[in-house]
């Protein structure tokens, strides 16, 4: 399993870097979805099956659809980063920084005897619905409020075009 975990981490790192370094919003949205899908597989491998299903369906699926729809509905000039931000020097050191940080984390894990949790550690015996509705409902409400906050933000940034 450890090989699969490292493959997922590698996917997350590689596509996460592409998402940050890309100048195109569509490319960034798609590579972000791949990063999210890889983290979903990682969650599944580590035993958090409900979280994995949620991550892959909502974060990787639904959110990507919303991103791409929003970008497509925006005018053409918004699908690319403005020229003043298209500076490759801005992110060229990012891969190196991430590789060094990853190596440091691996060393720290080795030195502290860090081990992966058992596959069934996150299972509580409750169904997905019971888990979500009875033990994490405050978080569900929080997510809904986060969603309406995001909607209000989209209205401010995309619909209201006046400048003070």
């Amino acid at each position: 399993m450890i090989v699969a975990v490292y493959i997922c981490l590698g996917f997350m790192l590689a596509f996460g870097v592409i998402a940050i370094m890309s100048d195109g919003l569509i490319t960034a949205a798609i590579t972000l979805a791949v990063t999210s899908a890889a983290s979903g597989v990682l969650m599944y491998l580590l035993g958090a099956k409900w979280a994995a299903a949620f991550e892959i369906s909502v974060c990787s699926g639904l959110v990507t659809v919303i991103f791409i729809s929003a970008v497509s509905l925006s005018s053409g000039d918004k699908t690319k980063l403005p020229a003043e931000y298209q500076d490759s020097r801005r992110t060229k050191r990012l891969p190196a920084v991430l590789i060094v940080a990853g190596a440091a984390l691996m060393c720290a894990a080795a030195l502290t005897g860090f081990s992966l949790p058992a596959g069934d550690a996150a299972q509580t015996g409750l169904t997905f619905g019971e888990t979500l509705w009875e033990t994490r409902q405050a978080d569900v409400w929080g997510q809904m409020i986060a969603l309406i906050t995001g909607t209000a933000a989209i209205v401010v940034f995309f619909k209201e075009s006046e400048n003070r």
Partner: protein
Amino acid sequence: MSSILNGIPYVFVAAPLFAFILNNAVPRERMRSHAVALSGGVAALQLAAAILGFALLAASGRGEVRFGLFWSVDAAGAAYLRVNLVSLFLLLCVGFVALASALTAAKTIDDHRCSFANLFMALLLGMNGMLLATDLFTLYVFLEITGTASFVLIAMYKSSKGLEGAFKYLTMSALATIMMLTGLALLFMHTGSLAFADLGAAALSGASGEMDILCYGALALLISGFAIKAGAAPFHSWLPDAHQSADTAVSILLSGIVIKIAGAYGFIVLVELFGDLYAVRLSVAALGVATIAFGALLALVQTHFKRIAAYSSVSQVGYILFGIAAGSPLGLVGALLHVFSHAAFKSTLFSGAAALHEQLGTLDIEQMGGLQKNMPVTGFASVTSFLSAAGVPPFAGFWSKLLILISLWQAGWIGLSAAALGLSILTGAYFLRLQKKVFFGPRNPRWDDVKEIGGTIRASQIVLSAVNLGAGLCFPLVLLYLQSIGLI
């Protein structure tokens, strides 16, 4: 009485949510002129509900009131929200600052009034949710809502400065998110739960009695994450830019309450859960001393009114951290009272900034001078704010700082207590400089025809000045009351 007390916590969720829905259900053209007033009404309702709730809960002798929104909190293992005296006091502070912000927004927010009201309500929901949470992950979810709403409020007008300030805030918030999520994951690995009831120093050390180095790492990450949100040094770089570039009504919210709920409240929770670990309290105290010193020294060299106020907020957060780090009920009461007194004097100061900006069109203090005669109400309000901030009796800031100093002394941190006292001289210095440059000294002839501001900003300044002085005069009574109910 019990049914009223059980119903009060719902106000903190339902009122902003109802206002948000109403704000969007009614056509914008019709809602535009009422949106800010509606937000102010919600803030006033929250203030009243928190005061009533605090009095009823203290009288009832119950430690907390548990509630769920659409689920039963009685089932075994069920999650629940709750209010206790600490959260009710902070909910009161949220309502108070939100009301001051709404009064200022009525004058300063011209465009996007409905969007402002929407984001304002989302911000209230975020902060209220943090104060009602009983689980670190739930607290994190509502912290993100608070951060998102704050970020959009700062960038609302899409000016280059606003976007720059918001981007800095977003970048630092993202860093805080990474730290906090990693910290929460490490804690969850060790304890299998993030509910407050299941956490504590004993839960981390487990049966062996020795704590894993990763637990210390988790706590360090959580402390750093909350330090970023609180604007504590050396994580304060985002705060002055964000506060300067935002509309003044938003600055009141950010400086008056958001940094305390998003940051300082996180420290209150951490010290409540892990205060038995000396390293946790020492880390918070070290952050406190650095924050007071950095904030005050940087405030001394600024020339923009709102930047001085923002660095002053950084410095004052340090005192709140000192009270929390003391780890005693007296220290906590001192910290909470300083949250209130800082909310009052900083809202006064930012209302003054709104008045100056509306009347002069600039907030560069080098261009001001001698404005006391032209704007006596703003000048007087600013002086009350300065005296309270500097800890001069009988203003509110004096009592809260005094309690913090005593709690540090009692905790055996005499050096820190002396440092807190010594550094308050710097507070006096930068506020004296501000007063002299803006309201006293020779008047710039450019401002000969400037008149005092009217309307809601003036009303807000008068009320806030009265609170600065009145709260200070009533503080001994408050302390006697807290003593009578066994809080100190």
